[in-house]
């Protein structure tokens, strides 16, 4: 019997019910999109690193897992010593340079021969490889986002580059220039940020890493597989705090909106509460009515929020093709749980208050 009563109360104030449900939907979407964007971006970067085809990543001592913060402290000549180690098939030196002219992208300065040898070469959608000093390759996502084609000019780091080709995405960065040109433009002559190392066979990776650690005891030497596991939103400095803050904000919005809606409902429905009490309804029954109302609104908001998240994800990916939004099922469940818990907590005090209302107060105010 609580069902018709709850339904009647929800439909009695349709605008308030809808607005509250929308607030819960915003809460759910905020959580899913913030987490989805950070997870999606981080995992997409990780996938691109994996796509290079290396087994081992060699970085300078105390370097960040975020390649954008790497700098260029290693001599390029170190690559020859790494290539001479037993079990190593190919070594590709890379100079990493952040490009902030249109959002944040990484430019890889590569030596075309060694990079091709390590990564089995690019798949070209248009054009050809890096032949001239001012040639640049962009991946298909970057080209689509900025409407670029082979043969056009692309200005990077205050320098005009010629787009030699558009390549399939997934080889580390979205923009590739020749290593020597990038070294010259960034004042890092003969310096690189990292070395990708590919072993002759994947199972040789531990042995090669041992050799590398003997050779470069203070350097960061990570198997690419471990690097991928480190590239999560929760393991990156600052990002986790940001994500948690946004989740907290979303939950707070849901909590406060439900609290206000239910509190207003109780003030408005003093007489109905008194009627239920005169019929012998227990405190639990009355509190349960309000809790059920709040959870019904939250459930409706949850459904709308999920739908909204997928619509917004499609919109974001359409408008910003280089962005990746990953709405993972565990986070859908977590967002649902958070929305319902926020609704339950937000309605707990109003429900408690309702259950303790003096019926006489309402019945005698005729």
């Amino acid at each position, binding site marked *: *019997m609580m069902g018709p*009563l709850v339904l009647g109360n929800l439909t009695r104030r349709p605008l308030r019910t809808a607005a509250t449900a929308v607030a819960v939907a915003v809460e759910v979407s905020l959580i899913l999109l913030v987490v989805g964007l950070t997870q999606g971006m981080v995992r997409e970067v990780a996938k691109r690193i994996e796509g290079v085809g290396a087994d081992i990543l060699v970085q300078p001592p105390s370097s960040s897992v975020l390649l954008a913060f790497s700098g260029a402290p290693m001599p390029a000549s170190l690559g020859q010593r790494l290539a001479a180690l037993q079990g190593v098939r190919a070594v590709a030196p890379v100079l990493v340079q952040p490009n902030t002219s249109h959002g944040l992208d990484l430019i890889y300065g590569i030596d075309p021969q060694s990079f091709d040898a390590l990564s089995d070469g690019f798949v070209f959608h248009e054009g050809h490889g890096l032949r001239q000093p001012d040639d640049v390759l962009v991946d298909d996502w970057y080209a689509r986002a900025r409407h670029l084609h082979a043969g056009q000019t692309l200005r990077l780091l205050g320098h005009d580059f010629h787009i030699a080709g558009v390549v399939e995405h997934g080889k580390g960065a979205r923009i590739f220039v020749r290593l020597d040109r990038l070294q010259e433009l960034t004042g890092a002559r003969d310096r690189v940020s990292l070395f990708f190392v590919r072993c002759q066979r994947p199972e040789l990776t531990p042995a090669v890493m041992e050799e590398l650690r003997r050779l470069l005891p203070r350097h960061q030497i990570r198997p690419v597989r471990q690097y991928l596991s480190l590239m999560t939103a929760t393991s990156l400095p600052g990002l986790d705090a940001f994500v948690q803050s946004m989740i907290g904000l979303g939950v707070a919005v849901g909590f406060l909106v439900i609290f206000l809606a239910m509190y207003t409902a109780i003030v408005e429905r003093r007489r109905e509460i008194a*009627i239920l009490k*005169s*019929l012998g309804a227990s*405190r639990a*029954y009355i509190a349960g009515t309000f809790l059920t109302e709040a959870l019904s609104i939250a459930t409706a908001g949850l459904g709308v929020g999920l739908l909204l998240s997928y619509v917004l994800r499609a919109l974001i990916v359409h408008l910003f093709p280089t962005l990746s939004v990953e709405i993972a099922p565990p986070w859908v469940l977590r967002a649902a749980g958070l929305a319902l818990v926020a609704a339950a907590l937000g309605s707990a005090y109003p429900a408690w208050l309702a259950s303790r209302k003096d019926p006489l107060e309402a019945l005698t105010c*005729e």
Partner: protein
Amino acid sequence: MQRSEPIVRTENLWKIYRTGRVEVPALRGVNLEIYPGEFVAIMGPSGCGKSTLLYVIGGLTPPTRGRVLLDGNDLASMDDGARTRLRRHKVGFVFQRFNLLPTLDVRGNIAIAQYIHGNGYDPHRFEVVIRLLGLADRLHHRPAELSGGEQQRVAIARAVINEPRLLLADEPTGSLDSQNSAIVLDMLRELNRQLGQTIVLITHNPEAAALADRILHMRDGIVVDGLPPD
């Protein structure tokens, strides 16, 4: 004639409302007895404590002093939960302003009392009551779609659906025209005569009170019947 045990007995019943530091006594030592099957009317001027007496007898608010026994249970010694349970099983209320739940239709307004009572929906009892109160063709209407008289009949149906030992009616005709008042009073009278329903009726209306078996008069928080004149 030997009478059975009273269903309601109050002994030196006091109720004092407190607003900040101000104390307002609404009941000042009420003593009365109401017996099963009786139809008792309580009359008196506004503010004499009639409605308060009704709410205390019905367990909606505890007395400040004294005893009130409802079917042998002392309400003064009960906590809110126990009074709620007793009210659920033994008392039905009818109010002046009908007090129906606006979001439920007639069926829902009556059935909710059965669900709160705990025995769930009883279709047989439901049919008997709605037929007695002439509500069969109004079951799917909401309160806003009913006349005052119809709303009060629904309120009576809701009050008696669980066969309470005591029906407390607080000026049930106070918001009705004379025609609907007569219908509602007739129904209360029928409930009392046909089903033996014990009824306590608060009213200002002498004609309504005249339908009762017994009339009690209140003034300044006490029942004055049987008291020596001032």
